């Protein structure tokens, strides 16, 4: 049984179809990169999975359970964690408190105490390398540190599926390589599936993903193993534009 199943999911905003009849299966421990231009429906798809939006049509099934109509706060403890494109820390709280929130509310065993959560938080803060910043206010971190803190916060939820919204955008190439190595490591250690949106950073896609899903105008265009997907002419066209000879052809 797949960890996550999307069955013909559609999400509309008035006349705009943000997600158009998308089906997707994610297995335990898989890593998938979602690529696509701005407005192609990637974030909307994440929101449908995490419950921020409810799907208008289709079904969302997680661990065999139909979660299509569940609110986000009941989906999270089932094992769905997510990070945001622009980090959304609880700014006035410390890094430690931020991560502890994930441990406290994001796990199914709701009985975990505040003190235990803080201990769990320390572990994940160490994992992402933010230990020196533990007691800092989250709002005072640099953008990259905020991203790392968000990752620690969602890992503290012990997710089975981690949705990462543009986790690498704005990062230095060296940091990207580090992050990719890190994600691979935690994926293996924690046994979680990761769906990451990766825009325009091919080296990260190649380094990280086993599978690539390409979205275009709300639809799933390609869903294939990484090497195959990157050779697909439609992907090349969306990503790199039409080949030059076609361009001249079209004009001529």
């Amino acid at each position: 049984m797949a960890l996550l199943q999307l069955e013909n999911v559609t999400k509309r905003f008035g006349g705009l179809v943000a997600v158009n009849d998308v089906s997707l299966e994610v297995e335990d421990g898989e890593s998938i990169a979602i690529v696509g231009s701005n407005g192609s429906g990637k974030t909307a798809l994440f929101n449908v999975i995490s419950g921020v939006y409810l799907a208008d049509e289709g079904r969302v099934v997680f661990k065999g359970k139909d979660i299509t109509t569940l609110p986000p706060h009941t989906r999270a403890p089932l094992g769905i964690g997510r990070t945001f494109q622009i980090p959304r820390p609880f700014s006035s709280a410390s890094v430690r408190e931020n991560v502890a929130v994930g441990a406290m509310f994001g796990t199914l065993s709701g009985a975990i105490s505040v003190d235990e959560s803080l201990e769990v938080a320390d572990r994940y803060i160490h994992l992402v390398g933010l230990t020196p910043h533990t007691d800092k206010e989250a709002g005072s971190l640099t953008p990259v540190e905020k991203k790392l803190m968000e990752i620690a916060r969602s890992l503290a939820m012990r997710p089975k599926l981690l949705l990462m919204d543009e986790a690498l955008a704005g990062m230095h190439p060296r940091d990207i390589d580090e992050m990719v190595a890190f994600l691979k490591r935690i994926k293996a250690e924690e046994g979680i599936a990761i769906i990451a949106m990766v825009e325009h950073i091919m080296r990260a896609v190649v380094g990280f993903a086993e599978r690539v899903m390409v979205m275009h105008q709300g639809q799933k265009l390609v869903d294939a193993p990484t090497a195959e997907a990157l050779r697909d002419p439609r992907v090349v066209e969306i990503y790199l534009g039409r080949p030059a000879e076609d361009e001249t052809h079209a004009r001529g």
Partner: protein
Amino acid sequence: MKAKHTKYLPLLPVSCAYFILFLIGKNVAGMWQLMAMLAFYCALGQAFNIFIGMTGYVDFGYVAFLGVGTYGMALSVSRLAGFPNLGLGVVVIGLILSFVMAGALSVAVGAVALRLRGAYFAIATVGVNEGFRYLIEGARIWGGAEGIIFSGQLTETLGRDTASSLSTFWADVMVMIVAVIAAVITVGYMRGRVGYALTALREDEDAAKVMGINVTKYKIIAFITSASLAGLLGACAWALKVMYVFPPEAFQIQYTIEAIIIVVLGGAGTLLGPVVGGLIYGLSKYWLAVVMPGFQLLIFAPIVIFIVVAFPEGVVGWVKRRAKGTAIQSYLL
């Protein structure tokens, strides 16, 4: 283990503040009324802070909970006066009734309004106050527009001396006790799951939701707590003190505004903030009334604006930031 021991240390300065108010009032002739007023403002700020400070939501209908609490006490004393052997029991029942009635009203209001966000919530609550007042007046329930005057029944039930000491002394002491209870609850919330959930939803409600926090539930918890404490304050500081209740006075929106000013001045979401805010507000209001009667609000407005601009996180928020890493840190919350 260290955290366990120091968890309740911040209650020390808060309790001290009320104890000092009590001592000055008791021992310096003519000071009791002023100290009682200061204690009321501090307590009001503390009760309100549990909701406004911890959730970041502004409730313009807050005074309705004090009003309903006032009615709880008035109803108990006036309706139970005929029963023999109740004695001080009417006051106890009155307190319970105030607590429950304010709590019930907050459940009704909160279940609907707390599904709205930020400014929409604030707008939705503006009407609660006036609505409840006109319901009482228009439907002629609980004495309608004439209110309830129960000084006679209270004297009858308890005797002249007890009734008089209840209204001139014990009512104010009870306000201080409610304030300390509010402080204990605040610390419990702030250091527990509730506090983490409220901080998260105050900072970013959507992020809080996907972290697994049932935001509506935690907002309602804070709302009910804050409202029930307000009910008790209404019962003590208003009903018992003047021994009557009159709709236009019990539902005066001015008190909501004062509560907001107190919380913001002192530091929203901090434990000590409302106490500091209450003292600053109460003292300056009193002082301005003496030196420039009639001009209090005109003078007070720029002072408030100055403090809000100079210390956007409130006086205590500012001090807390400065005190980070020093010895007094564990006493500040």
